[in-house]
């Protein structure tokens, strides 16, 4: 550690033996901040033994601080926070960035409270001002406003949305160092028993095409039609909250403010009205296609291709047209 050089630190979240890909996006933004500040760009990764670190270095990390221990096998933020805090109090980074995943959003506030500093949630942009202080931009009021926020205390901490920034490009020539850290503390007894129940059926946040169904669907079985369209286009199926609540499909598929935020190349909304809470989860898709019988549905306000029509006529034609299989009724 060179105390003279400030550190911009990324907290990477483990996903199996890999860092969650939001870390690669944070390396993209972090590189800009580190260059502006002439700082080192470091990563702190806690995970089970055998974590992959090469990609973090190739994508620009100066140092990867690695803590490996079986105690990091389960999402128990209290254990992560206790170990990280002890180390971070020594490293004293100027900036700490965490991905705003559900785990990141549970971990970072605890970490900030433990480090006695402020935290800005869910940032969509970050830059250094002329005095080398971090300007954090975040939406609030259910996405209706953007606020620029600064932190009076150090470290300046922010969580950043997944898929907000591009990933840092890998450069196999880039040199960096992996610094293995012993656990600074014994593993605390948190009073929480934790066991995994099941894996998510699908991770729709990573799909390049999402075909979503809403209340325009008459029955659960009709999702089969959307599945076939999704399969044809190499994508996954999403849903509005209404049909998740009706039990048509699991919450794993829910898009929106209280579901998943998706940013696919193409989003196809079938029988979805386009409530603000639904738009919050998909309005940043590259291309939005909407199929709705009601020409005044708000979803058409955000659609690149709006189709006023019955999804039961339109979707089967799409499937056949784009190479899938669906019977002609």
């Amino acid at each position: 550690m060179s105390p003279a050089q400030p550190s911009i630190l990324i907290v990477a979240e483990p996903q199996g033996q890999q860092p969650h890909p939001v870390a690669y996006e944070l390396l993209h933004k972090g590189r800009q901040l580190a260059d502006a500040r002439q700082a080192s760009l470091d990563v702190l990764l806690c995970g089970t033994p055998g974590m992959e670190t090469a990609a973090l270095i190739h994508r620009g990390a100066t140092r990867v601080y690695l803590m490996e221990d079986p105690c990091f096998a389960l999402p128990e933020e209290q254990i992560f926070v206790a170990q990280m805090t002890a180390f971070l109090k020594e490293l004293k980074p100027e900036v700490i960035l965490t991905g705003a995943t559900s785990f990141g959003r549970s971990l970072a506030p605890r970490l900030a409270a433990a480090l006695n500093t402020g935290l800005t949630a869910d940032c969509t942009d970050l830059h250094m001002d002329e005095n080398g202080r971090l300007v954090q931009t975040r939406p609030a009021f259910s996405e209706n406003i953007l606020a620029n926020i600064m932190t009076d205390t150090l470290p300046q901490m922010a969580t950043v949305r997944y898929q907000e920034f591009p990933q840092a490009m890998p450069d196999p020539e880039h040199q960096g160092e992996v610094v293995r850290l012993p656990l600074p503390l014994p593993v605390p007894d948190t009073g929480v028993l934790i066991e995994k129940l099941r894996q998510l059926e699908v991770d729709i946040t990573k799909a390049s095409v999402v075909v979503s169904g809403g209340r325009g669907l008459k029955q659960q079985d009709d999702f089969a039609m959307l599945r076939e369209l999704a399969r044809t286009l190499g994508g996954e199926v999403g849903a509005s909250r209404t049909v998740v609540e009706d039990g048509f499909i699991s919450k794993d598929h829910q898009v929106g403010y209280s579901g998943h935020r998706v940013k696919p190349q193409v989003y196809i909304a079938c029988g979805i009205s386009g409530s603000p809470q639904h738009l919050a989860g998909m309005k940043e898709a590259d291309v939005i296609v909407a199929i709705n019988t009601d020409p005044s549905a708000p979803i058409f306000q955000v659609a690149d291709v709006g189709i006023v029509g019955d999804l039961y006529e339109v979707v089967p034609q799409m499937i056949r047209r784009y190479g899938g299989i669906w019977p002609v009724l």
Partner: protein
Amino acid sequence: MHIIVLMKEVPDMEKVRFDTEKGVIDRKSAGTEVNPFDLNALEAAVQLKESAGATVTALCMGPPQAEKSLKEALSRGADEALLLSDAAFGGSDTWATARTLAAAIGKIGAYDAIFAGEKTVDGDTGQVGAQVAQLLALPLVSYVESLCWEEGKRLAAVVSLWDGFYRKTVTGKGLFTFTKTANTPRLPGVRDKMKARKAVIPCWKLADLAGHLDASETGFSGSPTKVKRIVIPPAPQRQGQCYRDALPEALDHLETLLKSKHLLKEVEA
């Protein structure tokens, strides 16, 4: 069992208007309501009260008018309500809010669990619950999808984190944050509403938290983060094309887009 439910009063997001040109939130344009996620936290507490026996206290920091939300909490099954309201608390960020709530909880003293919403629809951070947990050194059980009371008097929750669903069972005290999936909040009955309307809600000021909270830890001056500027972006609008009775043209348009993104296998004619 004593459960403290953290509840915030927020503007009604369906109605609130934003002045894009002046860059201000027109708070008068909408009424206020209880943060929707906090109603799920309250409902979970009231269900525990019914199934296992519990006392439920609703705790809110906000302006004097926020009393209205606490009355609503009473009408929906809370036993007690407490308002934290003082000009000194104004302008608190999540850190100062969490400090203030934690100080009040410290003064309340005896509790077994704290319930909060996953996030607020105005602040939208989801930080306050986790920060309160850290300040009180409690385990955090965030993103609760369902909750049950287990043999041996323990709270067990199904949460969605990482790449799946986990069960977290808390052997002592804990702080739980609830998603909208956790339950369907009940509607208050007419008689409950009438009764709640007459309730007198105690209000604590900064002075009431002496020994638990210092003036330097709350409000605008106690907040490490400061909003420097607010921009209200125009509502999302795309230069889209809308097709009516022109499905073939619509499908052509989409095909061009899909091909440009290499999402369509070229089908030989």
